[in-house]
């Protein structure tokens, strides 16, 4: 039976691929569409009441949220301390601009190295625990950095006044002003998106999803779970670090707020309202949050935070899969067949019906031999 057993499986897999365009072609289409939406952001955002600089900010936070999804969405680890990476990278970049040069490439590279070291150290300390303990540990460490920036490192960080600099950052001689900044950020966002998608479908990505699903089974399958967690943590820290550095490129100023827990909290909220484990969702969440904070606020005034909080609660209660889940539900309601996919919400009913309606019912497989 051994040689023949492989046949049906191989045939089924081949059949599935034939129905869709070739994977590389489909992937290229998705990336092209994504790049198009990102690069035209300044124009269509202006059309709906935003402004150019907001597009840059949204793209920066989208990078942050994208990396955060690799840790929270894939691996299932909720960090409440990613402000540490965002903030420390921002300070590193700021200090590079202020004391060394306005070279963006150099500042980014130095920041990435600093964040890699920092993430390795914090990872060793925090990844010993999971769940709520991990969240609390990351929060505690991030708040220590915030406190340090306001006390022992005050001379370097400028304390409450923030870090100011007179340098004009430049990339290969190109001054970082206006839309130039946006294009640099947009290119990095697209690269970050491509990388995250590749990780998701890779064997590394499968290991990360396995950690979220059942880390005990994974360990007792002979896998060093801790090392994979560390990799996920470090990758997401790098994204946060790049985002933090870009904030300083965008506006040569570092506020202590970058290290504050509310920065960590914002990226969590963005991820949840957008849709965890979808990559695209957290980025939509970032866009929504910043749009709300900067545009809608102008219309409804100070109570915007109250409204935002209400939206957050409603989404968590009624749409736990976030905007992406909502979008899929609308498509299903309109009768558009969505690509069958496993839900990111554990109790979503679609998979059950999908398989019990199809010919592959468990009952049928019970009659082998």
């Amino acid at each position, binding site marked *: *039976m*051994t040689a023949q*057993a*492989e046949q*049906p*499986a*191989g045939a*089924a*897999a*081949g059949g*599935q*691929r034939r129905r869709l365009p070739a*994977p590389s072609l489909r992937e290229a289409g998705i990336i092209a569409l994504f790049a198009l939406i990102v690069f035209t952001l300044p124009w269509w955002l202006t059309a709906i009441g935003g402004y150019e600089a907001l597009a840059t900010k949204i793209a920066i936070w989208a990078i942050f949220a994208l990396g955060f999804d690799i840790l929270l969405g894939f691996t299932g680890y909720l960090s409440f301390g990613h402000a540490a990476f965002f903030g420390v990278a921002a300070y590193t970049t700021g200090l590079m601009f202020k004391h060394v040069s306005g070279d963006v490439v150099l500042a980014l590279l130095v920041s990435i190295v600093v964040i890699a070291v920092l993430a390795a150290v914090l990872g060793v300390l925090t990844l010993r625990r999971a769940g709520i303990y991990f969240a609390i540990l990351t929060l505690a460490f991030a708040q220590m950095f915030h406190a340090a920036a306001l006390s022992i490192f005050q001379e370097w960080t400028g304390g409450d006044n923030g870090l100011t600099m007179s340098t004009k950052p430049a990339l290969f001689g190109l001054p970082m002003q206006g839309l130039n900044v946006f294009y640099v950020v947009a290119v990095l966002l697209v690269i970050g998106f491509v*990388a995250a998608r*590749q*990780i998701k*479908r*890779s*064997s*590394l*990505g*499968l*290991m990360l*999803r*396995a950690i979220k*699903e*059942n880390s*005990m*089974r*994974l*360990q*007792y*399958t*002979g*896998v*060093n*779970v801790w*090392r*994979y967690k560390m*990799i996920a943590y470090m990758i997401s820290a790098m994204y946060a670090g790049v985002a933090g550095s870009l904030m300083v490129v965008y506006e040569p100023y570092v506020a202590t707020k970058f290290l504050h827990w509310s920065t960590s909290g914002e990226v969590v909220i963005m991820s949840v309202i957008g849709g965890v484990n979808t990559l695209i969702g957290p980025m939509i969440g970032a866009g929504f949050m910043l749009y709300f904070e900067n545009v809608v606020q102008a219309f409804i005034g100070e109570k915007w935070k109250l409204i935002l909080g209400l939206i957050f609660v409603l989404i968590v209660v009624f749409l736990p899969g976030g905007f992406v889940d909502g979008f899929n539900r609308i498509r299903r309601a309109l009768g558009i067949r969505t690509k069958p996919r*496993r*839900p*990111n919400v*554990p109790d979503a009913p679609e*998979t*059950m019906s999908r*398989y019990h309606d199809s010919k*592959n019912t*468990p009952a*049928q*497989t*019970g009659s*082998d*031999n």
Partner: protein
Amino acid sequence: MASQAATRTEPGPAAAAGRAAEMGETLLDVQGVSKSFAGLKALSDINLQVKRGSIHAIIGPNGAGKSTLLNCLIGLLRPDEGSVTFDGRPLVGMQPHKIIQRGIARVFQTPQIFPALSLQENVAIAALAKRDGQFALTPHESLRPGHPMMKEAAYQLERVGLGDMLDMAAQNLSRGDKRRLEMAICLAAHPKLLLLDEPTAGMSRHDTNRTIDLLQKISETGMTKIVIEHDMHVVFSLAERVTVLHQGTIIADGKPEQVRGDPKVEEAYLGGAHE
């Protein structure tokens, strides 16, 4: 298989003397393992030898220490005393994933699977762990259906009878099928020793018989197995040797027919949780 069982030395005091002669054939050697929880002796002075290629059953009433013993083997628990030698090398004190990498796989009492992942992905994880060892940085390697590890997963799923549900999320399987999935995960790791903790618990007679068939089929590959079981039908259909645990000690050890008639075994089952 049958001839191997027949040539086995008798259990009891003679076992110690016979052990030296068996060394090369012994895959797993447990010596004087004890484990206590807060003063309660869960295992005391367990000695157990498992021959290469054999199916070895461990039976006993609830609370006899069967699962504790398996946990001590794979590093889920660390024995207070004693040694565990697998394939000629000591295991005690090693991290679980390293023990597993030596060539042990376990089917747990409650099926341990990756619920939201597809069946094929579930098994591919084990195939990857077999190929790459405990860790590999492979973000560049896309896992498409034609990937060798995905094909291996499909093959192993076919073996356990789940070959036509490759894309299904594991959480949607029935309990019996979840256990078969876990079996496929273990098979994809190509272990030298497979530990099965009540592989037929909660299964219908039909499913139980299918599981027995499957285990016998796997045996043809020469894989050694330790089966913990309550179901005597399973034990006597499969095992070449049976070890009976009661209150943390071995009260009988031998061929199934020897153990079946042992008065101490009957007493343990009647006095404790009756079958």
